[in-house]
């Protein structure tokens, strides 16, 4: 319990610091929400009116504390670009699709990379291992926007098994949305699968060289038994850390893939809010990402203890 409280306080402090940094960074870059919204045809009065209305005339420090006071009450303010929407409304309309896509990507990653990584480790040094490592190397080096375009062209335009631009929002047609997201989720998953495979393989191969493995083998345990009963458990610890990073990354919303597939998720919202200087939205989106990272790190700590009892005792 004490542990939990400690972690929770750490989370709050992290969020506070990050929110402050984001605010400062945003006030330093050129451009403001009103100008970027009204464009070149706006009259100076229209710009001044909207600035006053949005409270942009006040000094940064006042704006920050006003924002903070609201945020502590769960009110993240109005979007400046879409002024009829609150930040919470905007984010809750974008969050579900990002979460659905993240879960799908994770399933794909887990289903493919774990067996493939183990296989690669088992046949390490043989031609199959070489092939797997070559393929993963290639996949890792493809930039994700290009991968997205490639998948769209191959499956959407040539084979026509993917409905390009057929996105439907999950609250209208959940399974339709899931169906559409298969390809984007794959695009998100592929490079990460490659990384997890490589990571897992190396980790297992390193473990296999350790003394306890030799002991187990000399006891008469079969190769597979040793691999799954003894080695995997130890090999997983570094992999868990890595996968946790992947999870955080994916839950933050894929900045590139969401643009390529025109999916209205958190990634696109963050990018467009930055470019339109919609700082209340940016602020909330950054906090969301921070919270995800901190919470996932917390979960990882807990998982370590499951995988390795020594950490629990320490």
């Amino acid at each position, binding site marked *: 319990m004490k542990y939990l409280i400690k972690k929770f306080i750490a989370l709050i402090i992290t969020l506070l610091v990050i929110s402050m940094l984001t605010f400062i960074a945003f006030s330093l870059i*050129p451009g403001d929400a009103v100008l970027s919204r009204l464009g070149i045809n706006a009259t100076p009065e229209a710009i001044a009116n*909207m600035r006053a209305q949005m409270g942009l005339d006040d000094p940064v420090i006042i704006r920050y504390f006003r924002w903070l006071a609201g945020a502590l009450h769960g009110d993240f303010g109005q979007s400046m670009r879409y002024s009829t929407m609150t930040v919470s409304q905007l984010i809750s309309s974008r969050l579900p699709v990002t979460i659905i896509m993240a879960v799908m990507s994770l399933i794909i990653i887990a289903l493919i990379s774990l067996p493939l990584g183990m296989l690669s480790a088992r046949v390490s040094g043989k031609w199959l291992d070489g092939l797997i490592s070559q393929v993963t190397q290639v996949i890792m080096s493809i930039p994700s926007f290009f991968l997205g375009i490639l998948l769209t062209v191959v499956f959407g335009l040539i084979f026509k098994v993917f409905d390009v631009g057929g996105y439907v929002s999950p609250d209208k047609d959940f399974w339709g949305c899931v169906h559409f997201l298969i390809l984007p989720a794959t695009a998100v998953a592929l490079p990460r699968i490659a990384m997890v495979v490589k990571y897992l393989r190396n980790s297992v191969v390193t473990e296999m060289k350790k003394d306890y493995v030799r002991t187990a083998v000399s006891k008469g345990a079969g190769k597979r038994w040793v691999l799954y009963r003894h080695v995997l458990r130890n090999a997983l610890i570094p992999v868990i850390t890595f996968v946790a990073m992947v999870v955080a990354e994916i839950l933050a919303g894929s900045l590139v893939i969401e643009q390529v597939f*025109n999916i209205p998720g958190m990634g696109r919202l963050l990018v467009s809010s930055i470019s339109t200087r919609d700082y209340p939205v940016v602020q909330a989106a950054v906090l969301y990402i921070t919270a995800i990272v901190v919470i996932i790190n917390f979960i990882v700590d807990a998982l370590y203890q499951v995988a390795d009892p020594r950490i629990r005792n320490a």
Partner: protein
Amino acid sequence: MKRKPYKRISLGVMILTLAAVLCGCGGGAGSSTVDTSSKETAEPAASASADHEFTFGLDSAIASVDPHVDTDAATRSVLFNVFEGLVKVTPEGDVAPAVAQDYKMSDDAKTYTFTLRDGITFQDGKAVKASDVKYSLERSAKINGDSSALSVISDISCPDDKTVVITLKSADSEFIYNLTTEILEEANDKDQGSKPIGTGPFKVAEYKEGEYIDFERYEGYWNKDLDCIDKAQIKFYDKADTAFTELKAGSIDAMWQMTPDQVKSLGDGYNVVESTMKLVQGLFINNTYEPFKKVQVRQALNYAIDRDAVDKLLLGGGSKKINTYGYPSVPEWYNADTEGTYKYDVDKAKQLLADGGYPDGFDLEITVPNNYNLHVQAAEIMKEELAQIGVKVTINPVDWSTWLSDVYQGRKFQATVIGFDFTSLAPSTWYVHYQSKSDNNMVNFSDADYDKTYDEAKTETDKDKKKELYNKCQQILTDQAASVFIEDPVNYIVLRKGYTGFASYPIYVIDLSSIKAE
């Protein structure tokens, strides 16, 4: 050894679970995938879902559904379908009565009397009253302040429900062009930002911020002769490339501002409409930057840049080349005599540069908004061309918000490539951009003769004299080489076969009511 069966069982269970999960996922996906593909082969044009038929892909999102608040090009081009003013811009480049049936201008150009159209209603079915007109004009004037074209109004009176009398502070013969200001319903005052109600041919069925806007025909629209599609969607994209892929795949039906290469790669199956973007694209130069204080240097740049080459490389050569800040798409207020003043001539450019005191050229930073491919590419071409006369260009790409605040508002720049569109057919609203004291005079142009001619032109009530004066304004901009005005870029609009139309307007609009299903 005894443990082996246990191991096998646990492995077996694992594999079975995996297989089950895989089948569950893959099976569902697989079967629906087959469905889609068979549908697609059966009806290639069946992109239309039940909610909308025609989908237009736009490479930016609109800011809101309140036309008085948001006057940026994208928002205006979309909301044109929902709202109308007392008068409305026509494809021919004039204004025609819309909410008003007809109007009279007093001889001194100070009083305008409008009679509202018989039976005209808002999209919620309520009749448009004179008080709604008064409310709308006052609302827009209040939001846009003293610099707005409507600030010239001194009084609006409504003698009866169908008559509106507008009195101006001073004579303004161009005022009618500014009455395209959208008429909104007074009773909807609290919700103009979230519940759009206009008098236009289409009403908003659904609007998702940053995603799309769905339209359906307004049954009670005053023009019963309109023959067009019933439902439409305008879908927003961060990148035109994404929209283009979706157009190719068949999930959207139309796009604009395509390059000739893109049009070619689409092949048959599309109708192509050729128009222009209604922009003055050019290399806009800060007239207070040291080298540009000399007119010879500004002229040298004009001779050094080959407009034909720029156009050919950018858009295949179909654009309308210009030498002044004017809109060839509105011939009435465009001085065509300025065309061809600056023919590509490197030697002459070098000579002028030497005359201006820069025989060895100078350094020039061109700041470009990185979200506009057209302008970024144009800057790259100009960089090569200016190198020929010794002007060493560095290109500084910035994001749109930075461009607006640093370049447009702050005027902290040496040169930039951009395109200017226009919001109103009133020529004074464009030519004010070069008046020395104007807020829009981004290039810091200052010429006493121009200021004087502009003021005269604005107040002149005789149309011929007015045209002459505005022609003189444009001539001054050409002679003084206020900037390097390049072209109104060609605009290829592509519609999937099955759809025709897409009226070309002098302003930047997507008129859904001009699109027909075959």
